[in-house]
C-alpha cells in the first residue's frame, strides 16, 4: 500500500549537509498497522513527512496506493494539483493535533471537505457522521480550546478520515497524551483499521504503541531502517534489537554455576506449558528471572529469561528439549551478565 524505495533526504544549511534519510526502503502492506520506531533524530519524522511529500525527498520514490507521488511533485515548494488531489486521500494525524482554534470542532472536520468542494449540506452530514464514529457526537459546536488532549486527537482523527482515505499517517499521535488516553486513542486507531480496512503507518518513540497495535514494525537508526518485519518475524530473528526492546527481559543469575537462558515464544509453542513440562521431565528447578509476554495481533508472544542450575555443559539436554518444542533459545553470558543485546549467538546455531 505504501512503498518507498531508496528514499533519501539531505538537508543543506550554511554549507553543512545533514542526511536525515539514507536510502530507506519501506513496504507497508494493505490493511496493516505498521509502526516505525527510533530515537529522536533517527529520521522517522522526516520519513512519514516524505510519504505525503510534505517534505520533498532528495531522491528515491514514494508509492501510495499504486500511485507514484514523487512523480506528481510540482515545482519548488508548491504542490501541484495532482499531488494535492492525491494528498486529500491520505489522512494525517499530528502529535499536537493541529486543529484550527478559530473553528468549531465540526467546522474543523469540514475543512478538508471544503477543499474537496463538497456542498454545505454534504459537509455537515459527513462531519457529524465522523464525529459519531470517533465518539464525540456531542462536541460538534465546541471549540478545540474547550477539549481535552484525547478529545482533540479524536477530532484530528475524524478530520483525517474526512477524505475517505485508504491510508492514515500518524506522526507521534499519542506522544502528547497520558497513558490512559494513549490507550483509548490506539484502540480507536485499531478499530478504524479493522472496520474500515484502513492501512496505518505510524511513527512513535514508544515501544508500547508498537506492542499494542502494530502488525509490523521497523527500527530506524541514523536515517536507515536497520530492522523490519512483522512482530512475529522480528521475535523469530535471533538477536533482534527491536524484539529485545519490545520484550525486554532482565535479571541476573542468583549465583555462580548457573545457566541463564532467554526463551522466545512465538507461534504455536506459546500455548504450551513448556516450562512446567521441562521441570517435570528433567526434574530441574527453574527460576524465572524476568519475563515479558503479551498478545500481539491475537497471538501470544514474548520472551522469558530463566535460570537453570549448573553450567551450560550440564544443561545441554534441557535446552535441547526447549528447542524441540519449537522455541527459540539464546544462552546469556553468565560471567558478564549484560543487557539482552549482548546475548551469545551460540544458541541460534
Amino acid at each position, binding site marked *: 500500500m505504501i512503498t518507498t524505495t531508496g528514499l533519501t533526504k539531505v538537508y543543506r544549511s550554511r554549507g553543512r549537509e545533514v542526511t536525515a534519510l539514507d536510502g530507506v526502503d519501506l513496504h507497508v502492506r494493505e490493511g496493516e498497522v505498521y509502526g516505525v520506531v527510533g530515537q529522536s533524530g533517527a529520521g522517522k519524522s522526516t520519513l512519514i513527512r516524505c510519504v505525503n511529500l510534505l517534505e520533498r525527498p532528495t531522491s528515491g520514490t514514494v508509492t501510495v496506493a499504486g500511485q507514484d507521488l514523487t512523480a506528481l511533485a510540482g515545482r519548488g*515548494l508548491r504542490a501541484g494539483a495532482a499531488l494535492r488531489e492525491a494528498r486529500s486521500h491520505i489522512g494525517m494525524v499530528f502529535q499536537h493535533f493541529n486543529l484550527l482554534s478559530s473553528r468549531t470542532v465540526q467546522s474543523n472536520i469540514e*475543512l478538508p471537505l471544503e477543499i474537496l468542494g463538497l456542498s454545505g449540506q454534504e459537509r455537515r452530514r459527513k462531519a457529524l457522521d465522523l464525529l459519531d464514529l470517533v465518539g464525540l457526537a456531542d462536541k460538534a459546536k465546541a471549540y*478545540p*480550546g*474547550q477539549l481535552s488532549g484525547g*478529545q482533540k486527537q479524536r477530532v484530528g482523527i475524524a478530520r483525517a478520515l474526512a477524505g475517505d482515505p485508504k491510508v492514515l499517517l500518524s506522526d507521534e499521535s499519542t506522544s502528547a497524551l497520558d497513558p490512559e488516553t494513549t490507550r483509548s486513542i490506539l484502540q480507536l486507531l485499531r*478499530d478504524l483499521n479493522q472496520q474500515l480496512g484502513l492501512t496505518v503507518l505510524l511513527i512513535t518513540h514508544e515501544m508500547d504503541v508498537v506492542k499494542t497495535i502494530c502488525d509490523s514494525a521497523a527500527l530506524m537508526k541514523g536515517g536507515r531502517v536497520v530492522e523490519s518485519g512483522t512482530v512475529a518475524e522480528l521475535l523469530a530473528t535471533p538477536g533482534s534489537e527491536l524484539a529485545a526492546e519490545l520484550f525486554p527481559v532482565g535479571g541476573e543469575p542468583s549465583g555462580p554455576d548457573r545457566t541463564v537462558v532467554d526463551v522466545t515464544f512465538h507461534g504455536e509453542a506459546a500455548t504450551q506449558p513448556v516450562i512446567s513440562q521441562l521441570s517435570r521431565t528433567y526434574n530441574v528447578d527453574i527460576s524465572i528471572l524476568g519475563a515479558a509476554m503479551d498478545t500481539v495481533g491475537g497471538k501470544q508472544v514474548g520472551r522469558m529469561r530463566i535460570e537453570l542450575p549448573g553450567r551450560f555443559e550440564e544443561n545441554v539436554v534441557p535446552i535441547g528439549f526447549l528447542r524441540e518444542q519449537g522455541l527459540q533459545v539464546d544462552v546469556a553470558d553468565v560471567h558478564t551478565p549484560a543487557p539482552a543485546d549482548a546475548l551469545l549467538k551460540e544458541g541460534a546455531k
Partner: protein
Amino acid sequence: MQPLLHDACLDTLFMVWWSTLYAVLGGLPLGLLLVLTDRGALLQNVVVNKVLGAVLNLGRSLPFIILIVWLIPFSRAVVGTSIGPSAAVVALAVGAVPFFARLVESSVREVDHGLVEAVQSMGGGTWTIVFKVLLPQALPSLIAGLTTTVITLIGYSAMAGAVGGGGLGNLAITYGYMRHETGLMNITIVLLIVIVTAVQLLGDLVVRRLAGRGGRQAAPVGLRRLLPAQRTPATVPAPRAAAEAEATTAGKAA
C-alpha cells in the same frame, strides 16, 4: 468656536477613516506577501522578499513629518492639492501602509506552522492556506494591530494638521498655539484622548470576543495575561470533567 471644533473633528475622522482603509488594503496583502515569500515559505522568492522588506523599511524609517513634506508633489498629483484633509490622506496612507504591513507580517508569522502542514496534508493549496488558516487564525492579532494603526494614524493626522492638513491638529496649532487660545488647545487635547481611548476600547473588545470563542488558546499571550483568569470557566471544563468525558468517549469507542 463650536463649528470650528465640529469641522476639525470631522476632518480628523475623515483623514483617519480613509487612511486606515488604504492602510488595510495595502498593508494586508504586502504583509502576507512578506511572510509567504520568505525562505522556506510557500511562495519562496528571495528577490521579492528582500526588495519588499527594503521598501517597507524605507517607509518606516522616514519621520512622518518629513514624509508629508516630501510627498507634497505626489499628493498634488493624486488629489490635485497639497493642503487640506484630502491631501493629508495621501501622506497618511503612504505612511501607514508599511506600518500595518509589518504588523500583519508579525501576526501571520505567529500562526502555528503545524496548521499550515495540516491543511497541506489535506490537499489544500496556497489560497486555501491563506484564507482558511493564516487570516482566520491571525484575526485577533490582526485586529489588535489594526487598533494600534488607527491610533497611530490619529496621532499622525494631528501632525499632518501642523503642515496644513486640517483637523484637530491644525486647530490646536493655528488657534491654540499661534493665537494663544489655551482653552481651545486643551479642548482639542481632550477630544484626541477621548477618540484614542474609544478606539482602543473598541479594538480590545473585538479581540476579546474573537479570542473568547476558542477558549484560552486563541488569546494572544499578552492579552491572556491581562484578562482575569475566571473569565473562561464556563467554557473550559474542569480537569475532572475532562477526564470523565475522555473516559466515556473511550468506552464508546471500545
